[in-house]
Structures are given as C-alpha cells and as structure tokens.
C-alpha cells in the first residue's frame, strides 16, 4: 500500500511542479511584456531629432 500511495502522490506532485513551473514562466513573460510596453511608450514620447533618428536609441 505504501508503494501505491507514493506512486499516485508522486504523479500528482510531478504534475503540480510542472504547472508551477509554467505559471512562473508565464509571470516572467508578463514582466517582459510590461517592460517592452514601457520601453515602446518611452521611445514614442521622446520627440525625434531633425535627422529623423530616434532619441535615446544609442550610438550605432
């Protein structure tokens, strides 16, 4: 009975750990999207210089 218990318990622990990992990756992705949105808003607010090159884009 001990082996039976551990078999079912470990299956569900494994599944939940995987789901937890997916949720963590999803949160990291949300943070990344928020950063990208913030960055794109920042570059949209900054007026472009006369040369047409975006300000804050860094040297090339």
């Amino acid at each position, binding site marked *: *009975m001990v*082996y*039976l218990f*551990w*078999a*079912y318990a*470990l*299956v569900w622990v*494994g*599944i939940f750990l*995987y789901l937890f990992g*997916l949720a963590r*990756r*999803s949160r990291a*992705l949300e943070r*990344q*999207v928020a950063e*990208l949105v913030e*960055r*794109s808003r920042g570059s949209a607010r900054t007026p472009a210089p006369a040369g047409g090159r975006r300000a804050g*884009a*860094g040297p090339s």
Partner: protein
Amino acid sequence: MTRPLESLLAWGTLVTMLLALLGAFLFAQTEQVMGPIQRIFYVHLPLAWIGFVAFGHACWAGIRYLRTGRREWDAVGASAAEIGVLFSTLVIVTGSLWARPVWGTWWTWDPQLVTYLILWLIYVGYLMLRSAAGDDPRRARFAAVFAIVGFVDVPLVWFSARYLRALSPVIFTTHSIGLAPSMAQALGVGLVAWSLFYVMLFRARLRLGLLEMQVAELAGEGG
C-alpha cells in the same frame, strides 16, 4: 478554441479524472496475484500511452517544421516533447514503485525498460539541445530532426515486450485485452482522462511557447 469549448474541456478533464481515480481504487477488482499494488497500472499505462502520443506529436511537428519552415511548428514540437518527457519520467517512477514489491527490484535491464529509458534519454537530450543551442532557425532544424529520429524508438518499446523476453505484461494483443471487464473499464476511463489532460496541458504550454517566441522577436527588434 472558443471559451465554452475550453471550459467544457476543463470540466470534462476534471470529471473524467475523478472517475478514473474512483475506477482505479473502488471499481476495478483487485488483481489476484499482485494485490492492491497492481492499481498503479491505472495511472502507469495511460501516462505511458499519452507519453507516446506526445512524442508522436513532436515528431509530426518536426516533419511539418522541416517542410514549411514555420516557427509555430517548432513551438508545437517543443511543447509536445516537454510534456512527453514529464509523462515518461512519471512512467519510470511509477514503474519502479510497481516493480519493487512485484519483481523485488527498482529496476531491471529488461528490453522494454531499456528501450523506454533510451526513449526518455533521447527526448531529455532534445530538451537540452533546445535550451543550449541559442534561438535561431538552425536550432529549430536540429530539434526537428532529433524529434523525428527519436520517435523511431517508440515502436521498439512497443514491440520489445511482444517479441523479446520482456518481464512487463502484454495487455493489448490483436485478439483481446488481457484484463477483467472492470479493470478494462477503469483503464479506459483513465486513458480518456489523461488524454483530455494532455490536450489541456499542451494547449497551455503551446500558448506560452508562442508568446515567448513573439516576445523574443519584439525584444530583438527593440534592440
């Protein structure tokens, strides 16, 4: 998939999973030789079966990627292989927990077990290759080829129990199912439940994979 269909899938999975647990513990008769430990079978076999389906799915996605070059197929392959590795890891764990009291050992170099271990190692290698080889079309091509070649091992696992001297019991033959009716019904519900669970899990993982791909592209464009 529309929202009502998604909730139907979620509820269907939950209900069949509960039925599968009830079937395994209450409905299926106790096996006479092994006793209650045999009930591991009702989770072990569906996981093994869905693991094969997942690897087949990864192989199919690999073929589609090589033919079309569309990155969505790469994401499909990665999602299917990842879930396949999760399920096959659980198959090895539950198999060991079953083997210990029945065969008196956690592991034996039985042909079916060895070919299954090789299958697991191939797809673990596939995931390592994906994580190590950067993010470019070359990686996707290597991964696609790896998934296709890896799938060749699945028929070897299947037939090793039939044609080599394997310890694992052969349940499905061309003539019959070697189970009592209550056992076969419990197994059937388990197969449906884990299949639905695979579809749910795959959809969630694929959505994440596609989003990761898009975010990586946007971040690349943003500098």
